[in-house]
């Protein structure tokens, strides 16, 4: 039987506020356990929450970016359950009146088409702390530094039909929230975490199958693999005559296995009710309009601009515009060197490869955008060839200086001087009597290919510094003269 997969995502996005959603404690990542948890975060008796306005502004920015309705009367609720990393015994979240209502986000399919993924809503809530089950000799450690970090939980409709679409949606979200500057996007630090709802149904069937929820995936690759695993598990189950149980599952990326965490029957009754310590947040149109004014350029608009302003292909434009840091880098290089296409190629090629193998982020690149532009400018003005440029790039990467100083000190400037090139060509021809004879006796249509040998020798003799275009012209002239 043909099966169709149906996927919906719930995405937890940590907001890049300096302080927590209901307290003044810092949200910075990586501090010693429990050093960034104040009395409120610890749920000490008598403490009270005060909402962080910046968290609201960030949530509203997200809502505006996906063309969603912003709730002008949003309410916090208490979601009650006991867990040691949830100090109050309830999570303060939103249920009936989330700050962001329904919206949509487009993803690009491999066939070049665009698909709209509907977003059901996004709500503000506080993160829990962390339970550390290792290193405590049979006990668990609790780190409450993360407790109270503001999150938006973005809930999609079940609009995705395979892992590729789900990953494309996740990447688009990542691109959007980082471009907005509302999330640092550091997946390895848990800044974005994905819960994936998956079901399968016979192709053509309208009714949805029973879904499972795989929780807390924090990389695109794990998400892709977890979806593949779960789809296969569900299809095998059904084809073997069984049925899928509605449950929450955990994916173990190391073992590439998943296991059931709890079934629907075991699910908590969270006993939601409006939090009496926090009043409803009432917003007016002016407030929302003022935030709209501050929205930066969004990735989709940037992609379109790169195509028109820089004449980039749709693929290049999309690839370069998704990440704000990269987009800013690209624009600097393109504007300074004057050749956007070459800038795009160098960033997505040489630079990206070097960063990957060094496991560096673009923001930590040893080569600044200005320096890369300087290198590309030397290619376009004919000072160096593309090949020499790679050599210069390597030297720049090692910190030997900028392009001009390296070209100067290592004597890499391309030779375009006709007299010097003619001398080199003459010498190579004189030293290659056999190849010259072959050339002369060959059919005319074979000759261009045979010219490659002479070009190679000349480039070698010039240590790559001969201007290939000029060499070609001079060589062709001289060989033809010898026919």
């Amino acid at each position, binding site marked *: 039987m043909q099966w169709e997969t149906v996927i919906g995502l719930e995405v937890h996005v940590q907001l890049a506020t300096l302080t927590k959603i209901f307290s003044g404690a810092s949200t910075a990542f990586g501090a010693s356990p429990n050093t960034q948890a104040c*009395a409120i975060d*610890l*749920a*000490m*008796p*008598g*403490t*009270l*929450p*005060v*909402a962080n306005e910046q968290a609201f502004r960030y949530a509203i920015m997200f809502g505006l970016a996906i063309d969603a309705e912003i709730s002008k009367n949003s309410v916090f609720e*208490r979601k*009650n359950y*006991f867990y*040691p990393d949830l*100090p*109050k*015994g*309830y999570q303060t979240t939103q249920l009936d009146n989330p700050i962001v209502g329904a919206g949509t986000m487009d993803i690009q399919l491999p066939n070049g088409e665009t698909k709209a993924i509907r977003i059901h809503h996004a709500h503000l809530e506080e993160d829990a702390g962390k339970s550390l089950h290792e290193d405590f000799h049979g006990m*668990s450690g*609790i780190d409450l530094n993360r407790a109270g970090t503001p999150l938006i939980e973005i809930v999609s409709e079940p609009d995705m039909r395979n892992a590729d679409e789900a990953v494309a949606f996740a990447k688009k979200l990542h691109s959007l929230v980082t471009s907005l500057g509302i999330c640092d996007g550091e997946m390895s630090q848990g800044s974005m975490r994905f819960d994936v709802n998956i079901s399968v149904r016979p192709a053509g069937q309208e009714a949805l199958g029973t879904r499972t929820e795989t929780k807390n995936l924090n990389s695109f690759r794990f998400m892709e693999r977890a979806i593949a695993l779960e789809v296969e598990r569900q299809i095998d189950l059904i084809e073997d005559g069984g049925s899928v149980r509605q449950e929450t599952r955990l994916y173990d990326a190391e073992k590439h296995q998943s296991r059931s965490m709890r079934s629907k029957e075991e699910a908590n*009754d969270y*006993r*939601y*009710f409006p939090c*009496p*310590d*926090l*009043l409803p947040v009432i917003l007016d149109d002016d407030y929302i309009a003022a935030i709209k004014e501050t929205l930066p350029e969004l990735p989709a608009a940037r992609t379109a601009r790169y195509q028109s302003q820089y004449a980039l292909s749709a693929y290049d434009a999309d690839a370069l515009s998704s990440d704000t840091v990269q987009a800013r880098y690209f624009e600097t290089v393109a504007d300074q060197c004057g050749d956007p296409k070459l800038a795009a190629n160098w960033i997505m090629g040489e630079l990206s490869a070097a960063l990957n193998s060094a496991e560096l982020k673009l923001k930590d690149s040893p080569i600044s955008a200005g320096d890369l532009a300087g290198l590309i400018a030397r290619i376009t003005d004919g000072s160096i060839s593309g090949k020499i440029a790679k050599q210069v790039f390597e030297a720049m990467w090692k910190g030997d200086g900028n392009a001009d100083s390296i070209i100067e000190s290592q004597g890499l400037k391309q030779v375009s001087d006709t007299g010097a090139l003619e001398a080199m060509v003459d010498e190579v021809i004189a030293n290659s009597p056999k190849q010259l004879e072959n050339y002369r006796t060959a059919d005319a249509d074979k000759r261009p290919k045979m010219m490659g040998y002479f070009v190679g020798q000349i480039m070698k003799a010039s240590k790559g510094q001969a201007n290939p275009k000029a060499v070609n012209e001079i060589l062709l002239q001289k060989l033809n003269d010898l026919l």
Partner: protein
Amino acid sequence: MNDTVALHDMTLAELSQGLRDKQFSSVELTNHFLTRIGKMDAQFNSFITVTREQALVQAQAADDRLAAGNAPALCGIPLAHKDIFCTKGVKTSCASKMLDNFLPPYDATVIDNFQNSGAVMLGKTNMDEFAMGSSNENSFYGPVKNPWAEDSVPGGSSGGSAAAVSARLSPAATATDTGGSIRQPAALCGVTGLKPSYGRVSRWGMIAYASSLDQGGPITRTAEDAAIMLNVMASYDDKDSTCINKDVPDYTSTLNDSIEGLKIGIPKEYFGEGLDSATGAAVEAAIKQYEQQGASISEISLPRTELSVPAYYVIAPAEASANLSRFDGVRYGYRCKDPADLQDLYKRSRGEGFGDEVKRRILVGAYALSAGYYDAYYNKAQQVRRLVKQDYDEAFKSVDIILGPTTPSPAFKFGAKTTDPVAMYLEDIYTISANLAGLPGISLPCGLVDGKPVGLQLISNAFTEARLLNVAHQFQQHTDHHLQPPAASVSA
């Protein structure tokens, strides 16, 4: 020193003047009350903690400040605080085994305000555990005795504060009121108790029972003293999102305004079945008194009075069920011995740390919020709450003050209602609706029945405490019920 009136019989206003006139020092005054507490409180059990050394240090500092001049009204005056207000470094137990070992690292805003005004803290007063109760029989530290009749309850939950002020162990005390916990014990102990409007006094550092209803306020001997206390307790606090940013007037400045032409409404529902006839008669006499002072009296209706008790006993426990989840044995407070695993840690820490009434309300609240019951209980109760508010809004279109009894009868005997929670809950029938509507209410002594005090309750519109205190003060200017001390306070 004043030869005719003992220090412990003086009001805050008199003590404040005495300190300024150097009739006595704060250290002398503080020692006087510490000595009384030491001698007499074994009999009443109104204090959980007495902070003798800290009090004397504060008193000395207050004397220095007084000597320098320009000290605030309460500077140097000893006070007692309900053990629900967090006090930095001083045990704050909420009268629960759960917090018997809890030393807060911070002060409640109310405590901060008193510190800034130079007041001296004598100690922390007994109460019903987590403010749940109307008799003070639910304390981990044992019941408080009513200074007027030692076989009777002082009321609750602020029974310790009311008894301490009544027995002259403290000139005044802080308290909290969620459904009547200031006014009912004030009535039963023959003292004055003010519950301010919701949002008038910061809840920061006040351990939550039911967040949408809890409100701190003073228990004093006179309405004038209540005004002096509220001047310090009321403040805008950006640490409490439900605290209202509204100017705090000088509540003492309008105490002597005329009440000529004041319109007093008498809700007929407060004088029906369930009201003890002698209590009713004492309240009737108070109405006559107001009439003589120029007020006009009319009957009004608060038709949802009866519904306010069941609505309260859904909303308050629902909020409490979540508010008390933090007491889990993980970070502070009571933890059971040798927990086998996480579930065992939770179950036994909470099972052993909470008393019966607290457990009952957590269970009731969790039930009312459960899937399938939420609409029938919690939502319905919230609808009733809105209707109760509408009743008041309607009433205040025609009257300035609503007057009635604070409780259906005077103090009852220990054990009389402990086996019947509903009978105990009905103790709050006249006080609960002011909490549901967020309104200020005050209880004043208005007579004795069989030697036990009767409370007169006045309720006014939100944030009209100045008028409420003025109306209460004018009654006390023409009556002396509030000046009567219980015999037990004199014997020492």
